[in-house]
């Protein structure tokens, strides 16, 4: 069972309280972007065995979106942070590096 800390209301929310929102840090290009950029935004997703970044919504709680860094292999959660972040904050990156040295995910490492 996945338990994520909601950065908005501060509770450790059980998976059943949450709604998954797919991959985090997707970049939308445009207007006037190329077809390749738009295709990447719409369809191209990471599917890692290991460190992954996801969007979650505290659907049955405060209703807010937040982002989570976790391991798809072990379900270990490295940290959660507000949805307004354009990249993982340093403390989350450090937490991942401590457990998974040399990790990379898209352009982040």
């Amino acid at each position, binding site marked *: 069972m996945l338990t994520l800390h909601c950065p908005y209301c*501060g509770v450790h929310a059980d998976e059943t309280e949450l709604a998954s929102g797919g991959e985090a840090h997707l970049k939308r290009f445009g207007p006037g972007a190329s077809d390749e950029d738009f295709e990447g935004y719409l369809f191209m997703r990471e599917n890692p065995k290991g460190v992954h970044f996801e969007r979650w919504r505290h659907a049955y*709680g405060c209703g*807010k979106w937040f982002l989570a860094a976790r391991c798809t292999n072990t379900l270990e959660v490295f940290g959660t942070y507000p949805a307004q972040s354009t990249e993982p904050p340093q403390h989350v990156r450090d937490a991942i590096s401590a457990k998974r040295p040399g990790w990379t995910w898209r352009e982040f490492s």
Partner: protein
Amino acid sequence: MSNALSALGGAKFDGLVKVADAGLQGMITLRGNLADATLQQAVKAATGQAVPDQRAIVLQGDTGVAWMSPDELLLFVPYAQAHACVASLRTALAGTHHIVENVSDARAFITLSGADGLVREVLAKVVPVDMDPQQMPAGQMRRTKLAQVAAAIWMQGTGEARVVCFRSVGTYAFDVLCTVAAPGSAVGFFAS
């Protein structure tokens, strides 16, 4: 004026704990910037309370205020005053970014009372929340999933809990709580 009826029509159940319709309660949803001084004054004028801290609830009798999310409060006022209170809040908040709505008739309100350990246990059977007195002290509200529906729960005091959910699922929530409070189903997980 029409004859206002609460969602559960005064339903009562006596099992491990008493489960009862808490009756008509004025509830007002207020969304806006909780750090805004105008909003804080309006909340004080409406309920007599300051804007609560994260997850906190202050409810005395039928008046109080609860923290719902970083930009949302639930105000409790006497049922008959809800409309007038919404009007005065709108006047007080004119010009600031906000939403005020009377949601009194959109809610079901349930009281659980009995031995403190059993009240906590009955809730713990249907919510993914640690109901330990250290984790869920009185004065702290938790919005969560009660069985299959969204609900807000809090301990009003020792041996008394309150549940708020949507009116449309009020009967379901009441029936679920009666089921898990059935006589003979005690687990004895929490000390009474």
